[in-house]
């Protein structure tokens, strides 16, 4: 067959990006018998995606019945939160027995190069069409009102029309910004993350992290020992035969910072509490990503005439210091967007009004309710940076040294001294109470 067919308006929807959000929306729409075209700029879904990280699968479990052949690396059996000062660590580690049973609290480490390809394949098997190594460069508009009618790509004969465009292009959302669907984020609302993947034998990983068979850990590190004088932290996640080791901190703090991200990783790895866990091994990949952490304030309009924004493009990432979640929110947003597009098209409509159910359902879902609830955290952490990342870790260390001091003095003397150290650092009883009051929202 020699001539080239014209696929304009042959697809009901175009999804820009075959990452988690894109594939979730494509899968949902394909299940509603829509013809969906996924356009991925990488040579395979996942080739351009980077994360810490832990994949949270509550919504994926709803979308895909059989997760047996999903390429998980390890399920998370231990979470640890460490406060690092220059040389010291104070940590809280939790290993609930229940996490060893299915569905393992829906928390798994994955390699995005493998998982995203598998997840996009679920959408293809449901009937979606996937095209790779093709970059969407702009939206296609027509008519006086500049209605969105398709996309432009970097290929020859590269424009293609479709009634609806789902923008799932990740945090570096050039198309959405270029088309005026959202304003670029501010440096305070975006974190630069740099990450190393190192290969070890399986036994080394399991011995160093007290693991047995296919469970794994998610370690989060805060304080100056992790990423110095910046709002952010370090992380270690265990995969089957590799460790993901990295740091992430606000770009505003990375500006005129004496250390560059790769130097921050090197120093983090040399911390006395971290070095034993990450020594040796072989570097197999060095990656970086920008994480939109602006919280609820930075979420753009989700719905437009002929277009919806999902996943990182819509800033749907929760970081309140304890909960670091983006994957579940991306998939949830893809699901609700897919549903809304299907319903709108069924009624022959593509305008923002018809797509509004997507925004409404997302507001009712955990996605925007969590973002609203912890919206205060970003500014709070920035304001309390000095205390949280420098004074508190040091004070804790001094208090611990004092509290557990072994000498021939009576304990009472050390306990009193330790309490005093802590109070000094937190600004006396009233200071401590004020801070606790602010922190209460973390626990409510």
């Amino acid at each position, binding site marked *: *067959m*020699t001539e*080239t*067919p*014209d*696929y304009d308006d042959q697809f009901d929807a175009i999804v820009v990006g075959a990452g988690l959000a894109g594939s979730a929306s494509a899968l949902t729409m394909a299940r509603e018998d829509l013809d969906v*075209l996924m356009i991925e700029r990488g*040579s*395979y879904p996942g080739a351009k995606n980077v994360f810490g990280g832990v994949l949270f699968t509550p919504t994926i479990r709803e979308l895909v019945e059989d997760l047996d052949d999903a390429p998980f690396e390890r399920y998370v059996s231990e979470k640890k939160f460490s406060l690092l000062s220059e040389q010291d660590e104070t940590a809280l580690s939790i290993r609930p027995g229940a996490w060893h049973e299915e569905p393992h609290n829906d928390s798994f480490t994955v390699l995005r190069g493998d998982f995203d390809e598998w997840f996009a394949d679920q959408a293809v098997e449901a009937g979606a*069409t996937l*095209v790779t190594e*093709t970059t969407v460069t702009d939206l296609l508009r027509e008519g006086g009102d500049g209605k969105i009618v398709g996309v432009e*790509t970097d*290929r*020859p*004969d*590269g*424009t*293609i029309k479709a009634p609806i465009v789902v923008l799932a292009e990740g945090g570096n959302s050039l198309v959405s910004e270029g088309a005026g669907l959202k304003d670029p984020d501010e440096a305070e609302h975006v974190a630069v993350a740099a990450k190393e993947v190192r290969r070890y034998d399986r036994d080394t990983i399991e011995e160093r992290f007290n693991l047995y068979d296919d469970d794994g850990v998610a370690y989060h590190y805060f304080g100056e020992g992790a990423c110095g004088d910046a709002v952010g932290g370090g992380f270690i996640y265990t995969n089957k035969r590799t460790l993901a080791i990295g740091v992430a901190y606000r770009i505003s703090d990375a500006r005129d910072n004496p250390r560059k991200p790769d130097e921050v990783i090197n120093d983090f790895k040399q911390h006395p509490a971290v070095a034993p866990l990450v020594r040796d091994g*072989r570097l197999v990949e060095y990656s970086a990503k920008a994480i939109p952490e602006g919280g609820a304030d930075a979420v753009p309009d989700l719905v437009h005439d002929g277009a919806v924004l999902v996943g990182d493009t819509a800033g749907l990432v929760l970081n309140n210091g304890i909960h670091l979640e983006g994957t579940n929110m991306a998939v949830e947003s893809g699901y609700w967007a897919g549903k809304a597009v299907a319903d709108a098209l069924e009624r022959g409509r593509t305008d923002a009004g018809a797509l509004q159910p997507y925004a409404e359902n997302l507001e009712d879902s955990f996605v925007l309710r969590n973002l609203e609830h912890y919206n205060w955290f970003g500014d709070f952490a920035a304001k309390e940076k000095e205390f949280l990342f420098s004074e508190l870790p040091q004070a804790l260390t001094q208090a611990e040294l004092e509290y557990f001091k072994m000498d021939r003095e009576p304990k009472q003397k050390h306990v009193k001294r330790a309490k005093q150290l802590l109070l000094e650092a937190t600004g006396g009883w009233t200071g401590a109470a004020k801070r606790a009051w602010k922190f209460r929202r973390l626990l409510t």
Partner: protein
Amino acid sequence: MTREWNIVVCVKQVPDADDVSIDPETGTLNRSDAAAVLNRPDFNAIEAALELKEAVGGTITAVTMGPPFARAVLETAVGLGADDGALLTDRAFGGSDTWPTSLALARISEELDADVVICGEESTDSSTGQVPPGIAAHNGWSQLTYVEELEPDPDNDELIGVRDIEGGHEKVAAGLPVVVAIEFGANEPRVAGLHRKIFSETEFEPTEYTAADLGIEDQVGLANSPTSVGGMDTADPVERKKQVLDSIDELVEALQEEGVV
């Protein structure tokens, strides 16, 4: 009006050379996690075929020999502009070296009544560069290897090729049918159009041929392969002194000791 040419372009699916890792401890080659891609020199072959069709008219059929999923390289060729694709797939082909492989490609070229058969210079995984001359030899056709440029001359049923040879080049006119091997990097491969790529990956279906379809079922496979790989080990990287010197004199001295100055 001179008749249009039937053009066949031979393509091959190879493990992505970048992905083939060598396990430092055991030294064994690990091709398992390597993605299967189109052999890079074949992009120049497809581009040459497209330019030839633009000049002379006619049809281009992409041909590959391999397991069923090798059809992906035919999709790539069709996406770039080839008109059709033929997939030679049969357990009987398993283990074939250059001799049976070039025989199979020679038979399909005859089957497709080819005027010009175009191949990439060599494949990155075996890189013998012997398949194109093999096809020509099996069919008794003329051949042009290490070709930098092609000039069709349909009126005389000839294809003129500029060949790169040691210390210069030569211009050779070859009578049809002719087998051509395009030099790696000889032209600028185009990028597949979006709609054509979608068609090639959704609606396009290659025609499949077994060894029996080509009448060569007892002339292919391991038994009919004169050569076999006796062993494979990692090439030890060249040891370099990596000495950064401070002065020109030190360098001249070192080169004198090495006996090169």
